[in-house]
């Protein structure tokens, strides 16, 4: 297996059923790129002094810093218009930062060439508030497209899609037209599409924004189940009740900067360990 494959960079993350080197046949960013040997021990995502300005009088990001370790679940919150979506767009390179670095698996996303962007996105699973599913495609087709892009054989695609649909609670419904499903179900389809490639990082931009509170909790739980298998999740939301119902790490966007609002369980564990070690 070439060192360029992402599964390399995910070493050290225990996953129950993810040891599938053959399921990741695409190079990380670009054919021939070499992943550093230390990539596995470094943070998955690092934002260093990131600036983004659309209108000079109202800069969106003014020196945002963030470190996300492998296997973390991070809520990103902040008032409407504070730049949550922009932040995520910078990570999947829909936008480019004006200044600063965004390191994903140790590579600067901002400096990727146009032709490398698809290879970055193949390592991300993105979920949106408005689902972004294709209504006239079947549920199966909507999920399978992510694997077809990787030129995966049909037989494998069928197996993997069935598995992903089962994980989001849509087992056996692959043949239905996506447009006629309920909002919650459509978002499950989108989540299935995001996880079917087993990405290193899931970016969720207010995935519960269009759902009623009960469904929102359901979808959040779905993300937590995915997180439990070792996937890192960045979950942008301004729904405080949702954030309050869990004890994950919370990062808040304030005046263009990222402020640590709650360290989350992981942080607590670490602190306990330090305290325990000192005692």
């Amino acid at each position, binding site marked *: 297996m070439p060192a360029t494959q992402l599964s390399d960079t995910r070493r050290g993350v225990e996953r129950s059923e993810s040891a599938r080197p053959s399921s990741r046949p695409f190079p990380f960013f670009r054919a021939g790129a070499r992943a550093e040997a230390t990539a596995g021990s470094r943070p998955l995502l690092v934002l260093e002094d990131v600036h983004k300005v659309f209108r000079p009088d109202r800069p969106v990001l003014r020196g945002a810093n963030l470190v996300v370790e492998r296997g973390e679940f991070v809520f990103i919150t902040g008032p409407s218009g504070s730049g949550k979506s922009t932040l995520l767009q910078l990570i*999947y390179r*829909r936008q480019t930062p004006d200044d600063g670095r965004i390191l994903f698996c140790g590579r600067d996303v901002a400096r990727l060439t146009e*032709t490398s962007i*698809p*290879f*970055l*996105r*193949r*390592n*991300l699973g*993105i979920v949106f508030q408005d689902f*972004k*599913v*294709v*209504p*006239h*495609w079947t549920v199966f*087709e*909507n999920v399978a*497209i*992510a694997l*077809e*892009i*990787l*030129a995966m*054989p049909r037989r494998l695609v069928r197996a993997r899609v069935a598995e992903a649909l089962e994980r989001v609670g849509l087992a056996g419904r692959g043949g239905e037209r996506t447009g006629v499903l309920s909002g919650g179900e459509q978002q499950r389809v989108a989540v299935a*599409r995001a996880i079917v*490639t087993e990405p290193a990082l899931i970016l969720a931009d207010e995935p519960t924004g269009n759902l009623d509170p009960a469904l929102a909790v359901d979808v959040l739980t779905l993300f937590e189940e995915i997180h439990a298998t070792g996937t890192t999740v960045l979950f942008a939301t301004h729904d405080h009740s949702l954030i309050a119902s869990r004890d994950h790490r919370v990062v808040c966007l304030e005046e263009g900067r990222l402020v640590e609002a709650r360290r989350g369980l992981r942080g607590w564990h670490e602190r306990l360990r330090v305290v325990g070690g000192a005692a």
Partner: protein
Amino acid sequence: MKLRAIVARARRGLRGDLRLYLVAVACLTVAFVCLGAALWGLENLAALHDRFAGPRRLTVLLRESPDTTPARELRAALAELVEVRSVRPRTAAELRDAFLADSALGEGLEALPADLFPASLEVTLVPGIDRERIRALAERIGRFPVVEGVETYEGWLGGFDRIVLGGRIVVGGLALLVLLSVLAVVGGTIRLTVAGRRAEIEVMKLCGATDGFVRGPFLVEGAVQGVVAAALATALLAGLYVLGRDALDATVGALTGGRTAFLAPWMLVAMWAGAALAGAVGSAVSLRRYLTV
């Protein structure tokens, strides 16, 4: 495997926008029928032209019968020339008989005097000699005392040449126009379908699809539109030709002394290939600005 996936996705696209595609194909078919008909007309005109102009001929009109010594010497001299393939003497009586046999009028003309047609030499030239050399040759032959005149058929063939050339230009322009209309129609159709499939393109790009991956099916869809239209037009023209062929050969054929032919295979291949290419290009062009996600 990869091609199969592209074709599968193109099929899905074609199925989704079937009505739109049918309208586009209908428009394109009309355009191709026009082009095909023009090509067909030109082809037959050119064939006619070649039949008359094929091996160029000169008719050397003699003052005396071809059997006299000066005429014999002229014949021998002509046969020596590199430009000349063969020389055939024709007596006045022969010519008159030939005319009577060809003529449908027949009787009544038998009274024509034998010396109405001057004796002559039919000179057939080797192919590929240009007009300038023929003119020079005719001038040289004309200097023999036994020669009354030399007919090069230039004025008549020149007119025909101009007609064929004009036809070629008109058909060339028409082909260009049809090609442009294919580009425009396919481009417009694809633009409409792309607008309807924006969500699809965005999803693919966000899942890490390369531009080539997104473009593939659209190119196939554009090419299919072009080819289907060209094929329909061919079928339509062929049908019309088969139906009207006998009538055509009975009238036009009788006048020109030959049978008409359908479009040459290479023309059909060129038309189909051009249609496919124009369809794909039209599709690629209108897709360009939707790929930035």
